[in-house]
Structures are given as C-alpha cells and as structure tokens.
C-alpha cells in the first residue's frame, strides 16, 4: 500500500471514526455514537456496491435487497428464539449470497438499461414479499426481541462495543476489498468494466467474474443488513425500499466510485447532510433531490475527486 492522498484520507477518516465514542461521551451526546454507527453500517453497504458498480461497472439499482435479506435472516431467527449471532450472521451471509447468485445469474446475462431495471424489479419483488408475510409483521415490521448474542464474547447491548465492532468490520471489509480489487480477480473485473470486448479478446469470460463479484457484494451487503437490524432493533420491509437502493448508490457516487475511501466518505457525507437538513425542515428531500442532480451533473468524480489523485486504486 502506497501513501497516496486517498489512503491518507481513508486513515484520517477511520481514526476520526474511532474517536467518536470518547468525544461523544465527553460532550455527553450519546446520539452521535448512534448516528455514526448507522453511517458506518451504510458505509459497508456502499463499499459492497462500489465493488460491483465502481470496479465492475454493474449498475445495480437493487442493492437494498441484500440489506433486507441480511436483516430478515437475523430478524426471523430471533423471532423463533434463536439468538446466537454466529448462526444469525452466518445465515445472513449465506442467504444474501444465494439471493445475489439468483438475481445475478439472470440479470448479468443482460446489460445497460436492462440490468438497471431488472435489479430494481427483483428488489421490488422482495420488498413486496416482505410486505405480504403477515408472520413477520408485514408492512408494520416487527420489533427485534433481542440483539444478536455472541456467547458472551461481544455484547451488542453496549453502545460503544457495538460501535467498535462495526468499525472493525468496516476496516476488515476495506482490507478485503483492497486485496480483491488489486488481485488478478479484481484486475479482470476492472478490465471488463473498461472494455468488455477487449477482455474477451484476451481470453477472459466476463460472466463468471461479474457473477462472483456480484455474489461477494451481496454477501457483504447481507452483513450490513444484519448490522442494521441490530442497530435499529426493528425489522421492516422498508430496508428493501427502492429509495434505499438509490441512496446507497448516491453514497458511492457522492464519495467517488471506483475508490475504497469513496463509499465511506459518501456515506458519511450523505447521512450527515440528511441529519442536518432534516433537523432544519421536514421537507429536506426537496433540497436533497436537486443536490443529487447537481452532484451528478457537475461533480462526477465525487468528493474524493477533490483530492486530485488519479491513481486507480486506494
């Protein structure tokens, strides 16, 4: 790892995030621990989307599906009295990977606008499925009886412990993603993004690479979902609402897609902006919408682009 402006920025962000609980404690503002924990969970989701969107060129407009599957895996097991976190999170990973495999297998056969519409439609299907299962609260959702338990090793009921668990997981996923995109696998993936015809010409079959990336991203999104339902202590189909997919995608673009620090910065920026705007007016989406439009039109490289670092990894 070289010390480009981006890696330094990432380091600064992670250190700042690590300092949130003690600072919030000093200021007596426990709310901030909550806010930044939520932010980091979405950073994980955005990072997983960036793997396929930024590095693989797969414009998936359905990433909220995996948040939902991960959340439902935890919520449903809890509903049946199984509180073991290893089991719950394991199921979250397996289930979201399987769903990603099925959605990916169908949708990666297509490209461009078809891919966007299909991923969106499948996510909407899962959303409606969540809405119609009375057993698990249908559209009202249901309270999570208890947070995941890890045999006394980690206690999620303690806000700071939960916070640092999310931070550590974010760090782990950043490392995994870094290794992935710089490995041969990631190189092929990036090659198919920049020119699929050439990637084929030199002898790679993109389908398998794309599908693998799609499944890995789905599994990672599932972990974010398991974290999110533990964070909110409430399971609702709203996790899979299509606007959630749009938000996650916006985080990636806002931060800077095709970089590792981008999704983290994007999640921070968007959720803090939402927090500020919603404190100011209930109609904050009327301001956020045009901001989104302006970012897309005029700041395509995202906040990370401001660092002026053109290296392709980070």
């Amino acid at each position: 790892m070289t010390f480009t402006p981006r890696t330094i920025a990432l380091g600064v962000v992670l250190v700042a995030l690590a300092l949130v609980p003690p600072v919030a404690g000093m200021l007596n503002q426990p709310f901030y621990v909550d806010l930044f924990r939520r932010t980091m969970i979405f950073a994980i989701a955005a990072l997983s989307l960036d793997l396929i969107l930024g590095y693989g060129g797969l414009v998936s407009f359905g990433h909220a599906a995996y948040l939902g599957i991960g959340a439902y895996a935890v919520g449903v097991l809890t509903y049946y009295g199984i509180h073991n976190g290893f089991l719950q999170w394991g199921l979250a990973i397996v289930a979201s990977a399987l769903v990603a495999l099925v959605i990916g297998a169908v949708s990666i056969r297509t490209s461009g606008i078809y891919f966007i519409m299909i991923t969106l439609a499948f996510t909407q299907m899962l959303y409606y499925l969540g809405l119609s299962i009375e057993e698990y609260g249908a559209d009202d959702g249901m309270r999570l009886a208890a947070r995941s338990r890890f045999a006394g090793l980690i206690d999620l009921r303690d806000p700071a412990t939960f916070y640092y668990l999310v931070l550590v997981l974010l760090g782990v996923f950043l490392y995994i993603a870094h290794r992935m995109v710089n490995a041969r696998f990631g190189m092929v993936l990036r090659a198919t993004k920049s020119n699929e015809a050439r990637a084929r010409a030199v002898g790679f079959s993109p389908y398998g690479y794309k599908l693998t990336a799609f499944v890995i991203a789905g599994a990672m999104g599932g972990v974010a979902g398991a974290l999110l339902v533990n964070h909110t202590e409430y399971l609702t189909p709203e996790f899979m609402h299509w606007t959630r997919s749009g938000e996650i995608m916006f985080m990636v673009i806002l931060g800077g897609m095709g970089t590792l620090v981008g999704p983290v910065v994007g999640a921070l920026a968007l959720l803090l902006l939402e927090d500020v705007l919603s404190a100011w007016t209930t109609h904050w989406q009327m301001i956020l919408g045009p901001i989104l439009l302006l970012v897309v039109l005029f700041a395509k490289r995202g906040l990370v682009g401001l660092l002026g670092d053109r290296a392709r990894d980070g």
Partner: protein
Amino acid sequence: MLLVLEQALNGLQFGVMLFLMAAGLTLIFGIMNLVNLAHGALYMMGAYFAATFLAKTGSFPLAVVLALAATLAVGIVTEVVALRTLYERDHLDQVLATFGLILFFNELVAVVWGRAAMYTTLPGWLSGHIQLVGIRYPVYRAVVILVGLLVAALLWVVVTRTRLGMLIRAGATNRTMVAALGVNIRLLYTIVFGFGATLAGLAGLMAGPIYAVQPGMGEQILIQVFVVIVVGGIGSIRGALVGAIVVGMVDTLGRAFLKPMLAVLLWPTAAEKAGPALASMLIYLLMAAVLTFRPQGLFPAVRTR
C-alpha cells in the same frame, strides 16, 4: 366464469394504463437513450392536477384538458432545465439524476397538497355501471379501457403514418444520421419528451379515481412499467403494448385467483399464507422467465448505432 371475465377486464384496464406509461418511457429511451426514472413523477403530477382542477372547476372534461396541459408543461420544463444535459451521459448518471428529481417531485407534492391520500369523486355519467354480457361493469373502468385502446391506435397511426412518426422511427434507429440530415434533433427530443409526459399524465389522471392519489404513487407503477418494458423489449411500441397487456392480466388475475387455486391444489391454510405473497411476486417471476428464454424481450427494437 363471469367473475373471470370481470377480472380479465380489470386486467385489461390495468394493462392499458401500464401501456400509456410504457409507450412514453420506451419512446424516450429509444430516441434519446435516456433512462427516465422521473416518468412516474409525471404520472403523479397528472393525477394531482386532475384532482385539483376537478375540485376547482367541477367539470370533468375541462379538468382532463387542463391536467394534460399542465403535465405537458411540467414535462417540458423538466426536459429543458434538467434532462437535456443528461442525454449524452451514461445510464448511471441518468438514473441518479432522475432519482434526485423523484425525491424533489414527491416532496413538492407533499408540500403543496399534503401527504394524505386524495380521493376524487366521479361525475354522475361516469360513476354508474353498464350491463356487459351478463356482468355489471363500472362505466369508468370501461372508459379507461376504451381511451387506452384508442390512444394505442392513435399512437400506431402517428408512428407509422405521419412525418413526425417517421422522424421518431428514424431517430430511434440512428439519431446521429437524422441530425446530420438537417432535422432539428433538439426540437424532436423536446416533442417526444412532451408526448411521453402527456401520456404519463393521461395515465395518472385516469388512475386518480381508481387508486389513491398520494406522494410516491408514481414509483409503484413505474417499477411495474419497467417489468413491462423488459418483457416487451425496449424501444418498441408493439412490445410495450403486448408486455403491458400480459403484465396487467397476470398481475390482476394472479391477485384474484391464485389464492383459491392454491387452496384447491395444496391446502387452504398454506394458500392463505402463500397466495398473496406469490401473487405480488408473479409479474417479477414472469419477467425472470422471459429473460431466461429471451434476454432481449419479446419484441426487441432493431437498432443500429
């Protein structure tokens, strides 16, 4: 049997509304290469305009004309202000920018009209029932079907028999060449977009008296319209029509008969639980099935570019 007929008519009615949306969306995509998520917002604006003008003027025909004009105006302003710069961008940019527009429009509607659902009352001559081969069918739904089929026929005439239609078809095949031949392509874009916006507005104003008029109503139908387009094949009006009728039928009949059918085939308690869930997933499963066998949809448009 009569119940099946009634539900089939309902399916047709839903289908023609999907078609009005899908036709505009597929034309806009075919010619400008634009993924317009905000198409559902225009549908919503049409519904709100119609409800408001109906309450203000008391005349249904007048409200329809005013609502169509207002939606057209909103569509053209949106095109000129925001979307025009997006035609040359990639799909990701278009998706995100129009997603931003959706957030804006939904919130705008909530500011102006409030978040609560609005219901419109139909004038007397539209609220009765007609006798149709043994079933009583609501006049209004029958009118929706007729208007939808009429618009479909009109669209066919415009696209295949007029100079504008010729330009539209030419633009969909190769827009660079059309521009090179001296056609004012920007004007053509604005006309096509306005056309699509008006169709969406028409679908929205007809939806008002049947479904609830509320913020976010546009996206619910938009995603179903995406299914229509994927099934029918993108950029093709014929595909949009076939896809819309198929999706409308499958969705409506599925919601009406899947539960009783499962109750016969399986056992009642399972049908009670699985029926509604499966019915709401049906059109997406249909889409997956079509994609597996024909990834380009049933009637893909021919395109050279």
